[in-house]
């Protein structure tokens, strides 16, 4: 009895071990060699622990930001970064999230097998974010154990088919084929932006006829562009708060230098966290893909958004800039109506903004991409502000979810759970 207890609670209770075992099963199912099974299993274990280490770095950097923001402006500033909050949530809900993700894969395969929607969602990190929002919101709504995992897994699995299906009419227009679908949980934002672009734009004047300056291309290096934005986000409140507030943290380092390095430290955290995610998914995604393609004939892989970038590279830059303008406007606008100040999340602004730019260019040309982008920026700033009260204890780390579909699921799921309580 005590041995069983040891296995179930002490061994499998550790999310890192559980995930490594899931990867191991996947590797066995693909009939990999013993050597590959061992290295793949340990790589996955390593990945999960690297992810947690990244989350710790982020939490430290955010604590400092929260403090200077509070003292400087007398209000809360919350960063939107889905990876960061997912990392933080894994510290306590890792097991639930892992099992929701596995169940979501199964639900995805079943829907694709038995309906005419043949989409197989292959963007592993997006699946992880979706599983995280389901576990966090479900947990805060009072669900526990099996109930939480089953409900979360079914929701996440359905989203994995519904969102690519929703995007496909415009993806077809962009790529000119039905070979690939878009698997990225920002689809609701893309569709809304495309709607605005269609109403306000002129499809005959494409972004791709423009000549954009070469110097903007560094923005494609996401960690660099993130740093460019995080530096003022840290330095401005630090200047307002003054050296006394910083002194408690800085151990004698000049307050501006300290704050500058903290802003870079935040990016370091995101870098480490995503390196962990990469290791974590390296074995799980190919296993899922292999199994899915065997079970589902004519499966359409739903892939991460940058696969669309080469089709309209100018639209990516324009969408990114206009979304960022919208999110900065929203940052100042929404606190006026009593919502938290949401600081722009650069990863989402780049990937979601860039893809939204491609979508709106396809239906509304360059004017559509610009106007739609500003609107998109406002939307992705409003949604996290609305979600914040539902996050409970998970919202206190000064970071929240980004990605419109992930938040929309959180909002709908959270309010339904609250309604029944």
């Amino acid at each position: 009895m005590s041995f069983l207890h040891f296995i179930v609670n002490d061994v499998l209770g550790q999310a890192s071990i559980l995930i490594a075992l899931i990867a191991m099963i996947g590797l066995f199912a693909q009939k990999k060699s013993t050597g590959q099974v061992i290295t793949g299993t340990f790589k996955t274990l390593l990945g999960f622990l690297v992810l947690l280490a990244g989350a710790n770095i982020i939490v430290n950097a955010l604590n400092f930001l929260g403090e200077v923001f509070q003292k400087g402006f007398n209000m809360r500033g919350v960063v939107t970064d889905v990876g960061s909050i997912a990392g933080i949530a894994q510290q306590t809900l890792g097991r639930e999230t892992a099992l929701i993700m596995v169940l979501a894969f199964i639900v995805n395969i079943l829907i694709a097998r038995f309906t005419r929607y043949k989409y197989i969602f292959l963007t592993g990190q997006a699946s992880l974010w979706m599983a995280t929002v389901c576990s966090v919101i479900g947990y805060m709504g009072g669900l526990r154990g099996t109930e939480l995992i089953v409900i979360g897994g079914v929701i996440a699995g359905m989203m994995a088919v519904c969102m690519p299906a929703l995007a496909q009419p415009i993806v077809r227009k962009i790529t000119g084929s039905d070979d690939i679908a878009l698997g990225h949980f920002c689809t609701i934002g893309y569709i809304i932006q495309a709607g605005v672009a269609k109403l306000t734009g002129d499809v005959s004047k494409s972004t791709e006829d423009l000549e954009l300056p070469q110097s903007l291309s560094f923005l494609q290096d996401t960690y660099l562009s993130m740093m460019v934005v995080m530096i003022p986000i840290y330095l401005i409140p630090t200047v307002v708060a003054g050296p006394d507030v910083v002194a408690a943290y800085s151990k004698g380092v000049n307050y501006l230098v300290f704050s500058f390095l903290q802003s870079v430290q935040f990016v370091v955290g995101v870098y480490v966290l995503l390196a962990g995610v990469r290791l974590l998914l390296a074995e799980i995604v190919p296993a899922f893909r292999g199994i899915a393609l065997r079970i589902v004939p004519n499966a359409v892989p739903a892939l991460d958004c940058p696969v669309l970038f080469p089709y309209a590279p100018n639209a990516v830059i324009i969408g990114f800039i206009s979304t960022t303008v919208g999110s900065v406007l929203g940052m100042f606008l929404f606190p006026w109506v009593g919502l938290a100040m949401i600081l722009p999340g650069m990863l989402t602004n780049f990937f979601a903004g860039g893809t939204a730019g491609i979508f709106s260019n396809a239906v509304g040309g360059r004017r559509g991409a610009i106007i739609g982008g500003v609107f998109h920026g406002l939307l992705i700033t409003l949604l996290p502000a609305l979600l914040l009260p539902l996050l409970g204890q998970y919202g206190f780390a000064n970071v929240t979810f980004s990605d419109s579909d992930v938040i929309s699921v959180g909002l709908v799921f959270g309010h339904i759970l609250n309604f029944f309580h």
Partner: protein
Amino acid sequence: MKKLSILAVCGAGLGSSFACEMSIEAALKDLGVDADLSHCDISSATSTRADIIVTGENFRSQFQHYTIKATVVYLKRLVDKTEIKTKLTPILQELGYLA
């Protein structure tokens, strides 16, 4: 002969480079070439020692800032197996991995 290493690269090193890596794997299987495959972000790519780097056309200007020993392949469609095969074949022949 040293085992060939190929690196797929995108902006964050998570999604599309991974999808690209899986397409490269399929392409190499057709060509009968065995290689170590991995994927990463563009900042890390410049400091790794791969023989061949595969990335999107949109990153061309980024890569031209650096001197990289690896042969860089730019793709229009990151997951197009045919394009990958067409562009990799001459390089593999030059490096001696393909007759």
